């Protein structure tokens, strides 16, 4: 049971690894961006795992709820809520850069782009 309580964090670490490996090992830029978004989601998962309280409920106070109702921690939720929207905007920016690279070089593979740069 104790180890299952840490499962969220282990998955967080594994997702970080997958995301980082995707960024480092793949030369395709779009693939790297997808890896980046996996990395990002791993961080979201870490924060949201922290907000859970046993027997709690979402931090929206119901009018008729008993006074001893336990609520989840609202603070990580606020941070991640904004981070998701910021994340999609920055991903869009990265994709825009990738599109411009494709137009300029005709490819989105980093190794080929480097070759072309060396030839110049």
């Amino acid at each position, binding site marked *: 049971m*104790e180890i299952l309580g840490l499962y969220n964090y282990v998955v967080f670490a594994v997702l970080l690894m997958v995301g*980082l490996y995707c960024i480092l090992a793949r030369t395709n830029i*779009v693939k790297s961006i997808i890896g980046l978004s996996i990395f990002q989601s791993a961080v979201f998962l870490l924060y949201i795992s922290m907000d859970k309280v*046993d027997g709690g409920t979402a931090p929206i106070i119901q009018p008729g709820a008993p006074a001893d109702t336990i609520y989840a921690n609202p603070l990580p939720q606020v941070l991640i809520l904004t981070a998701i929207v910021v994340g999609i*905007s920055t991903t869009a920016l990265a994709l825009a850069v990738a599109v411009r690279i494709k137009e300029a070089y*005709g490819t989105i593979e980093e190794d080929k782009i480097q070759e072309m740069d060396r030839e110049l």
Partner: protein
Amino acid sequence: MTIVFSLFLLSMLVLVAVAVLRTDNLFTAVMLSGVFSLIMAANFFVLDAADVALTEAVIGAGISTVLFLGALALTSEQDRSPPVGSWVPLLTSSALGGVIIYAVMQAPRLGDPNAIVHMHVAPWYLEKTPELIDVPNVVTAVLASFRGYDTLGEVFVVFIACIGVMSLLGRVRPRRETISEETFSKQSRNLRHHLIPRVVGKMLIPFIVLFGLYVQFHGDFGPGGGFQAGALVAAGIILYALLEGDTRARQLVPEWFSSVLVALGAFTYASVGVACMVMGGRFLDYSVLDPHDAIHGQHLGILLVEAGVGMTVAGVMITIFHAFARRGIR
């Protein structure tokens, strides 16, 4: 209960992430990352984060896939990375993973009520929100009022990202990838000849926009707020653009309008803060907005600020989508 659900969802998460990593086809990767974000949203909901789950749902399922597909259409579908020759990436990521796993072994288990995170400011927020702000949704209260400064910063980050996309994919016509007129004329840029999707989709657009407005103005009482609402409204417009073509969508929501929306939202947010200063309070201290009733002032401030956030997010999403879609036409 939570643990059982988490077990299923998190295992699927890892499976899908590894599959995304292994596939060579970028289209497959995008589809699988759609599944990834769906699992993530379900997981957020199980972990009692309703607002975050709603955000991830709208952004991940609705907008992210469309943006990635738009980018794939402009770049390439195939990942032609050479097979990995060196051990450096694997070693680096394993080292990172090892360190983090070692570190999290000391972390408090999931749902521990005595974890340090729950000791500091969180109880204060939960306790004082009914008294100081009187909004049922504590997340909205913290987002818009207690940490309003932070959210203002985030809105400006989104704003700047939008400017970046616009300047990258602006009006300049690309040189190399021009296609002949014949091929160009064959390109279909909408789904107008598909009768069933067109009818059903158009039928749903008003409901999506209406639901977006509901989420916007019900955000004080239930899950929701400006971020989710903006993305929902934008998703409605994007659906219209997919069905009727980008040109028509730009007649519906002209470009100047979405740009003005982006700027106006950020401006509204900041000017509410300035108005607070003018009325004798501190920046983004809404209590002074109504001299007779501090709580009413807070309500007014949150309403205005959330409206600003909604406008900016909707404008940014629509603008980014148009930028990608128009690039595809030329």
